[in-house]
């Protein structure tokens, strides 16, 4: 029984209710993606949750790099292969919009 089982994800793996999010959930989901969360990861997760605010809309890659003070390269090292989407999932937010 893991925290992941108590949470509803949509077919793409994004949380449907961002209020259900907990730090344990983030760690568990990150683990599943092969990431062990460090302070550097948490700084970004916290930034994204703050940015999203009530709307639950995840920030884009550029919003993260210009707002959280990391370079894109660092972001890719922390959350390999599609950091914007990965951070959004781990932070319990919806799919990053930005693409229209």
């Amino acid at each position, binding site marked *: 029984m893991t925290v992941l089982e108590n949470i509803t994800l949509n077919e793409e793996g994004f949380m449907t209710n961002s209020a259900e999010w907990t730090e344990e959930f983030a760690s568990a989901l990150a683990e599943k993606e092969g990431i062990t969360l460090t302070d550097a990861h948490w700084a970004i997760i916290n930034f994204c949750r703050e940015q999203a605010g009530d709307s639950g809309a995840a920030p884009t890659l550029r919003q993260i790099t210009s707002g959280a003070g990391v370079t*894109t390269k660092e972001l*890719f090292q922390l959350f390999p292969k599609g950091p914007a989407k990965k951070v959004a999932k781990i932070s319990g937010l919806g799919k990053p919009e930005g693409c*229209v």
Partner: protein
Amino acid sequence: MKTFLILGAGTGGTMVANKMAEILDMQEWRIVIVDQDETHYYQPGFLFIPFGMYSPADVVKPKRNFLPPQVDIIFSEIELIEPEKNRIKLSRDKKTINYDYLVIATGSHIHPEETPGLTDEAGWLKSIFPFYNLDGATKLGSFLKFWKGGRLVLNIAEMPIKCPVAPLEFLFLADWFFHERGIRDKVDITFTTPLPGAFTKPRASSILGDMLQDKNINLVPDFNIMEVDQEKQVIRSYDEVEVPYDLLVTIPTNMGAEVIGKSGMGDELHFVPTNKHTLQSDKWENVWVIGDAGNVPASKAGSVAHFMLDVVIENIQRHMEGLDPLPKFDGHANCYIESGFEKGVLIDFNYDVEPLPGKFPLPGFGPFSLLKESHANHWGKMMFRWMYWNILLKGGEMPFESQMSMAGKWE
């Protein structure tokens, strides 16, 4: 005398000037429009220039021809906007203009310098070209005329971009062009995109993805470009995937006008935070935004600017009467996608409904087919240029509504 000021005389600004000139009482108001460039570019035409289908002369006309005589036109760079003081500063003669109402229509522009290595002199405009401006499109045309083939890579640096279907159209037209020239077997075409598929919306993405496959165009999704390594002739992503090229066609990062950033009015890409349903600035109630300049999550396209027009005009008039703006803009976009061989696909969508199959604009009849290739759609696109110059810019009636309709579509 009150001042109604419009920044930018491109697609959106020109339409607003024409509409407001009909509406405002010229005894009471003066309408001023500012732009740094005397030439109006029909940007959708840039797509056809690399393939010799249009010449540069087909896509330029003097801006003045499209603005009514009662509007003051000032050709100057806008140096600064000071929304707290309701005024702007121009570069020309260091002039200041005070305004009562401001419409921002300064568009979006490409910034190749955002990608390291892209504009290094060795290859820039020699084997690496953008086609989102006239100069790049023209030089790419000269290059393609004599190209013997090799690896053609098209890259989208970052979303959002204006006219998000233009890269796909470029690929389809390239496939056709090389067929016609008898060298398709000598050209390897690859599309690298930061999106997870061919397009932004899932239904359309899968249909357009199949079309790429049918045309033997390789798709590399989730490709976030980090740099261009001109020496090795590869583009490299942040996760170290390399794609080699002989000819690189780039859609560089798109950003709002620099003056928006400089004036502290924009987000991280210099797009103005705007209410996505009323088109009023989030911060200043006498500031309104039309076209590519805003951050609304709709496609950045001329057709969208046209659908925004009625909403902006109505809401400004309401504001003048002391009424609240109405949340009428639904994100409606309508794009013809050239698919080569004199065919095209049409998509119609808004904030909530993704592109669906069906007939447009008359349910069941068309003449245009949605999400499906047809010759009529190609002719629709070719007619669009005439409509753009003769109807759209003047704010005239187009044969479809601003709000999207579900009639004639199936889910």
